[in-house]
């Protein structure tokens, strides 16, 4: 007997984010609470990866989620999934914080930890994201060293490509192409479509 195969994690438990988002755009605070549960862990995760500082990360993650509520009526499904929209915003806000002049203290702190931290392995293991995490790790391992270092320094550390070039002592043009090649491979390995 054939059994249905579900692609993607826990289809039965996953709220339909598009539907939730529509309700949020109509001012439905209950729907927002549901959306929060679905996306807050990834929002905090990516902000913390970039900022490192626990207290600042929580503050920025909360600001991002409030901004999601505020700007929900402007979300357009044809421009990408709800998750993409929110996580792009989260990463952008973390980057803004880290590059702002006021955050120079944070930057110093980050520069210090940057030297001693290995790549993307500081995160606690959690069951519900384990599969995703393993898939991403597997795909990152499939990149060349230079591709992987470029992508992780830029995304998880929030460095500009110029800073990445400096950090890795390679020409600017090389970093640009490695970021793009690396993302093409990751995209194909992760089976991403828009």
């Amino acid at each position, binding site marked *: 007997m054939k059994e249905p195969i579900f692609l993607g994690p826990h289809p039965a438990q996953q709220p339909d984010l598009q539907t939730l988002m529509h309700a949020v755009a109509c001012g439905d605070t209950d729907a927002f609470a549901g959306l929060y549960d679905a996306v807050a862990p990834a929002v905090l995760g990516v902000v913390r990866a970039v900022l490192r500082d626990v207290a600042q990360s929580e503050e920025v993650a909360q600001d991002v989620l409030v901004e999601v509520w505020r700007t929900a009526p402007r979300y357009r499904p044809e421009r990408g999934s709800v*998750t993409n929209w929110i996580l792009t915003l989260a990463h952008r806000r973390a980057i803004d914080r880290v590059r702002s002049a006021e955050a120079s203290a944070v930057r110093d702190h980050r520069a210090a930890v940057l030297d001693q931290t290995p790549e993307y392995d500081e995160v606690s293991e959690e069951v519900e994201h384990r599969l995703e995490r393993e898939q991403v790790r597997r795909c990152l391992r499939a990149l060349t060293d230079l591709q992987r270092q470029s992508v992780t320094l*830029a995304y998880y550390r929030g460095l500009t490509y110029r800073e*990445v070039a400096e950090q890795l002592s390679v020409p600017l043009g090389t970093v640009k192409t490695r*970021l793009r090649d690396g*993302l093409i491979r990751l995209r194909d390995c992760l089976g991403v479509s828009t």
Partner: protein
Amino acid sequence: MSTNADLHTLTGAYALHALPDDERALFEEHLMACAACRDEVGEFTATAAKLAAAVSVHPPSAAKRRVLQRVASVRQVAPSSRPRSPSTGLRRRLPRLALAACLAAATALGGVAVWQHDRAEDATTQAEETRGQMDQLVAVLGAPDADTRTARLDDGSRATVVVSDSRDQAVLLTDLPATPSGKVYQAWYQVDGHMRSAGLMDTHRTSQALVLEGSANAASAVGITLEPTGGSARPTSDPIALLTLPA
């Protein structure tokens, strides 16, 4: 001067937010003219979202409370069309269309119920009163600063309040179960912690729109209670719904 081929390689750096501001502005200009670049950026952005999901951590439970608390007093932006859209007429209509979609989803169309009510009335004076209500209703729903709040009740029905600062008025749209006999739904404004009656709902209809009586700007919330027929001066039961208004 960068060639187009050079610019195209920046899709990766752009999607990862790894371009300095000046180069980002230049690349965004290029994006406007390069559909292939836009597609690639879209795919890379989705790829980056996977990288984010892979480092998920659980926020402390207090964080959710704080966010929900803040959200209760944050006004949502009006939906807008694309900023570069040449059609200003369409742009002006869009927020209302979006609001109409919200209302259609929230209730079984209060506007239709009002219209039916209008037709059913024989006495001219009552019809005129209804028309007056309807004018106010349309004015609030169509106000450029109209903002909505929706709450789901225990039984799954929904209540939506649309409030306009500029008109100092609010409309309550509900789709409630029929009242037990001898009871009526009463709407309230919460003002400085006290409940002020904002009107009674029609007991003959479950789905309806009510223009609330009194100043909306002074109120911090709108509540609904079940009261004896004729209504009460003060609520005699806990609200079945309490919708916090945006500050």
